[in-house]
């Protein structure tokens, strides 16, 4: 009997979170996964014997602590371990180090510019202010600005009040911030190229925009608003790789009686009399349920697995126009030892942080120029990590695993599909750049997995390889995410819902969309809520 109370499509972290909260409320839930393994983009894979790759998402910060605690993920084996700091290497043989200790950080900045070092405190306060505005809304459904329902009116009023409370000057700053480019924003505080470039990275990661494109200041915020144990902005690794998050969520889900079904490739959501009735797999199998939740991105949800005749035209139009441009690729590399980077003592703890080689905003913008021209960046922006310096389970002792997030890579190369030769060229641009700063790097490579948007889309199902399932620009945030009128996790089809990173509050392995969607579904079913609220911000 393939009859369930609810079916969730896609066993990524949001699908599993959604399933867990529905199952916790007593529903009979199945999460269907098209791959033979769970996790979606939250996955660890042993692609070279002895080396584990977090081969999509690679760091954890935004995962909501309310969910981790409520679903008892540590008891189910999840351990998130902080790493500290990072560095941007410069072309003159030096580097800028980002230390987690405030005083050490000051000294390092002062080594480059005393004025920048002092300005950092002002920058941190201003950025924290913006973070505080958005954080209370992470574990909540965005209010509908056109609705007259009491809940929406109350939430809108609260939202408006938090802005009005800022006072005139800070309100104007805020409006400017939400629309500004990260480059312009940083230029208002700092004078040192490497310092600005180091910080600007967070404004472009996962986004098909350049450091001087309006809207990228918010993307920076999106990367800052997470926390590890109350240290806002801190990032960590899941011990055992990102798959440990999916594994723990899956165990929590199953502990409430949920069922995970792999190799289940959904062909279409079955709609009967305007209501969701289940799903049909590509192999013909049918699963019946009055609730169907899609954890696929909005484009795939409405354009691939829903019959267009079941949808109103405006949704089809909005789905088609949804911005989900691929901008990045990834190299996962097994190393025979620790690479040495010029200027930095290999014993320095910064080695365990995020490493970069783009030492100016201009270089970052030029990297974006290549994307606009339809090709991968010849001098890319890299967000590189060596998780095996923090987590001993990722590689054999003395060996290392390197995760290299690469920007930019277009979804199509000069308008055509990626070829294997393109992929080799893309890989070469990355390896060449790293080798320019690390003399022993090339000789240490034992295995390299290269993923262009083509591979990310084909294997993980992220349209165009967009890691956030839709760009995080203001036109696609809050009550605009995924599109206006549909930001409360409901689709136009009764009984069909959305829970992916394409919904509020967006991507980054937060699990908040999955949890928020479950809250709405349970409300519609008039079931008691099992989803925790957010911790009060202070």
């Amino acid at each position, binding site marked *: 009997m393939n009859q369930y109370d609810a079916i969730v499509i896609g066993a990524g972290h949001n699908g599993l979170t959604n399933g867990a909260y529905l199952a916790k409320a007593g529903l009979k839930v199945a999460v269907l996964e098209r791959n033979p393994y769970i996790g979606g983009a939250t996955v660890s894979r042993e692609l070279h014997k002895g080396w584990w790759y977090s081969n999509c998402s690679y760091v954890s910060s935004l995962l909501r602590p309310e969910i981790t605690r409520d679903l008892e993920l540590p008891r189910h084996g999840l351990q998130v371990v902080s790493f500290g700091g990072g560095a941007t290497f410069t072309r003159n043989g030096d580097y800028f180090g980002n230390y987690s200790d405030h005083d050490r950080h000051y000294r390092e900045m002062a080594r480059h510019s005393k004025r920048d070092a002092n300005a950092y405190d002002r920058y941190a306060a201003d950025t924290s202010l913006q973070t505080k505005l958005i954080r209370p809304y992470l574990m909540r459904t965005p209010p509908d600005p056109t609705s007259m329902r009491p809940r929406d009116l109350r939430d809108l009023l609260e939202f408006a009040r938090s802005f009005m409370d800022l006072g005139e000057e800070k309100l104007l700053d805020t409006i400017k911030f939400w629309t500004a480019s990260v480059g312009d924003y940083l230029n208002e505080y700092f004078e040192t190229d490497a310092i600005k470039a180091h910080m600007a990275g967070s404004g472009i990661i996962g986004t098909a925009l350049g450091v001087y494109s309006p809207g990228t200041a918010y993307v920076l915020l999106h990367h800052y608003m997470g926390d590890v144990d109350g240290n806002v902005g801190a990032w960590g690794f899941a011990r055992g790789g990102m798959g440990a998050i999916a594994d723990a969520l899956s165990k929590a889900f199953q502990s409430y009686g949920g069922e995970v079904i792999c190799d289940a490739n959904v062909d279409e959501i079955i709609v009967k009399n305007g209501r969701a009735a289940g799903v049909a797999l590509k192999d013909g199998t049918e699963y019946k349920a009055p609730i169907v939740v899609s954890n696929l991105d909005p484009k795939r949800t409405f354009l691939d697995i829903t019959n267009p005749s079941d949808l109103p035209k405006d949704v089809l139009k909005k789905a088609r126009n949804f911005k989900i441009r691929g901008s990045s690729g990834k190299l996962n590399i097994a190393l025979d030892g620790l690479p040495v980077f010029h200027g930095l003592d290999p014993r320095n703890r910064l080695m365990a942080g995020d490493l970069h080689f783009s030492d100016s905003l201009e270089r970052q913008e030029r990297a974006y120029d290549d994307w606009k021209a339809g090709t991968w960046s010849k001098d890319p922006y890299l967000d590189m990590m060596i998780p095996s*310096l923090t987590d001993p389970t990722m590689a054999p002792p003395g060996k290392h695993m390197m995760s290299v997030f690469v920007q930019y890579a277009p979804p199509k190369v000069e308008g055509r599909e990626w070829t294997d030769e393109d992929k080799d060229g893309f890989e070469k641009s990355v390896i060449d750049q790293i080798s320019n700063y690390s003399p022993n790097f090339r000789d240490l490579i034992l295995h390299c997995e290269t993923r262009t948007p083509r591979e990310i889309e084909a294997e993980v199902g992220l349209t165009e390889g967009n890691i956030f399932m839709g760009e995080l620009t203001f036109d696609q945030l809050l009550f605009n995410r995924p599109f206006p009128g549909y930001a409360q996790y409901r689709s136009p089809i009764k009984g069909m819902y959305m829970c992916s990173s394409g919904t509020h509050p967006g991507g980054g392995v937060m699990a908040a969309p999955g949890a928020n969607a479950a809250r709405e579904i349970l409300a519609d079913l008039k079931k008691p809520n099992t989803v925790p609220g957010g911790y009060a911000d202070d």
Partner: protein
Amino acid sequence: MSYVSRDTMLLTTPFHSRVEAMCDLNDWGNWMGYTTPNAYFDVELEYFAVRSTTGVFDLSPMNKYRVTGPDAQRYLDRLITRDVSKIGVDRVGYAIWCDDNGQVMDDGTIFRLGEQDYRICSYQRADDWFAWNTLGFDVTIENESESIAGLAVQGPTSCTVLTLLGCTDLNQLKPFGIAHYSFEGRPLMVSRTGFTGDLGYEVWVPPESAEALWDQLFELGRDYLIKPIGSYALELARIEAGFLQANVDFMPAEEVVRVGRTRSPFELGLGWLVDFKKPLFNGRSALLKEQQQGSRYRFAMLDVEGNKPAEHSFILKGDKQVGTVTSAAWCPTAKANIAYAQIEMPHGAVGDELVAEIYYQRELHWTRLLAPCKVIDAPIFKSPKRWQTPAPPH
């Protein structure tokens, strides 16, 4: 000739030259009269070394007393509340000792090194108390605090690192077991004990071996991501793992001035360490009476809602204040907000729902928060690695 006397200067441990070289933050504290690092480079990362790789903590300032002689076991059975005969040779036992009123003076570990040979490792100094208790026993007590240097080597890769150091078959050592090795021609003793709740060991050597031990540990441990940890990181780990701390979670009975501020083993949740089958031990009659008539307080571990640590909080039942918090922390691995509290009877039983009155300050603004909390029955952090034999490699 110096112009000032430096006779009040803190002492340094046998590892100091190495500790000092690694103490990037130059953030020092005073522990038992010794200069010890509060933090080396980043409290959080040090804490995570214990949880994910290996953290090394210099515990040389711990007080160590050697107890030898024909009556060693009888003496200890008199001194402490548990049955010492159950601690075999090359085994360690956690223990508490009480004054005659059954009030806890300190907790510590008892190492049985031979048939008539024990070592007590205690937080507090106890020369006087231990000496008075020798009356009538053929036993010798020697303070060997300064002649033994110790490192806690704790975390998932700790067994692997120590094995590389020459501790053969260490993975076979059971929890609370002791193994003897030699290091550069001098004895090196390893016990599978610790204060972190995870796989971990304590390594004991003569002070002359200290610097070489440190150097080799960090050299061999590099590929296993070994890191030094200071007292702040250890504090976080011990709260998460459910360990009490003298002078924090209870007052050593002999130091208490005000009436009623001491605590019995039952009031600290340590009743399991009291063995009434023994005919006589310090505090027995008082404890027996307490067992029959009831205790004044209950030690409770609280799972507190929200993410604000309930430091120094009052604990309420309804409107009534029924207790206070002694230790509290947001636990980074267990992802829970944990507090230890002393709760007036009859409140505080497992499952009891209470409220923590939390005060916290942000930018000079104080907020009062009433956070619901629940009494839990066991420490929030439970690592299966702690009890596994053979010990896992990481």
